[in-house]
């Protein structure tokens, strides 16, 4: 859990600082973290706000960028299917990249775990962390110019590398990672983070294909 909080903190901070440079009012930046709670799409939204993009364009982009969360929901379905409906409704609100990564990591660690408690602990710790560091970022963004170029965002890349490496247990897994990475790189210049969706689709397809070849 701790790595996630450390990894995500710089992003909240950078989001806050960027919102200042983008000329977004402080209340809107904080409100976005409070109600949307989806880092990648918030970064893009800030960029679009700075470019005076139309609201419908910002909303449509947010939808495309966050489509991957539907995959997370499907992937965690086995864990949550027995929860009461209100818990699933609340849980969906905090289903971020980080929450998914840490919960999946825990569920597959083999250790016994009280799943609703772990899920909500992770999810809401991330939520408070994200909103608090958005606020810190807004304050720092006004006080320390240029902080968004310090490279603090590398913490999240390192965290995801650390989560993925132990999952690479066999050829299908390694193949899936290679395909996802290669396609995401080849398509990195596409708008709306479409490269991310294409890379994810390629990785899943190659993993399934290699697994079939084995049995």
């Amino acid at each position, binding site marked *: 859990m*701790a790595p996630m909080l*450390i*990894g995500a903190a710089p992003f909240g901070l950078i989001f806050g600082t960027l919102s200042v440079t983008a000329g977004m009012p402080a209340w*809107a930046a904080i409100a*976005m973290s409070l*109600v*949307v709670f989806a880092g990648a799409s918030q970064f893009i*939204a800030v960029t679009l706000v700075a470019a005076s993009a139309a*609201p*419908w364009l*910002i*909303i449509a982009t*947010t*939808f495309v960028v*966050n*489509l991957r*969360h*539907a*995959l*997370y*929901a*499907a*992937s965690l*379905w*086995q864990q*949550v299917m027995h929860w009461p*409906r209100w818990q699933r*409704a609340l849980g969906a609100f905090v*289903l971020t990249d980080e929450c998914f*990564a840490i919960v*999946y990591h825990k569920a597959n660690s083999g250790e016994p775990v009280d799943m609703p408690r772990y899920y909500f602990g992770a999810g809401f710790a991330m939520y408070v962390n994200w909103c608090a560091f958005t606020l810190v970022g807004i304050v720092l963004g006004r006080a320390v110019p240029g902080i968004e170029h310090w*490279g603090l965002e*590398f*913490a999240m*890349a*390192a*965290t*995801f*590398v*650390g*989560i*993925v*490496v132990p*999952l690479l247990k066999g050829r*299908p*897994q390694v193949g899936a*990672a290679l*395909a*996802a*990475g290669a396609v*995401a*790189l080849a398509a*990195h210049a596409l708008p709306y983070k479409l*490269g*991310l969706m294409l*890379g*994810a689709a390629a*990785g*899943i397809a190659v*993993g399934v294909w290699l697994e079939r070849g084995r049995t």
Partner: protein
Amino acid sequence: MSMVWTLAGMFAVTYGVRAVLWLGDGHAFPDSVRRALNYVPIAVLTAIVAPVVFVHEGAINAGWNNPQLAGALVTGLIVWRWNKLLAGIAGGMLVYGAWRWLL
């Protein structure tokens, strides 16, 4: 006012994507879909990380002078060898910081 609508719309599409599956009742995925979903974490997280690590100022850079790559390799190595996530992240951050400072 348009900011309020933007935020409301962003909330609606984001929450909708996250919740639509969990709020429908009583569906079970066929085995083939379940197998495919096993690859979601590897595929999605790698697709997020690869451009962060390799793309520098809009161009792909896989050379020794790429600090993200150096840091990611150290993180990967530590986690692979010792299975310590926090140590891996710390090591990767240190190497990344050192690379940026030296170059």
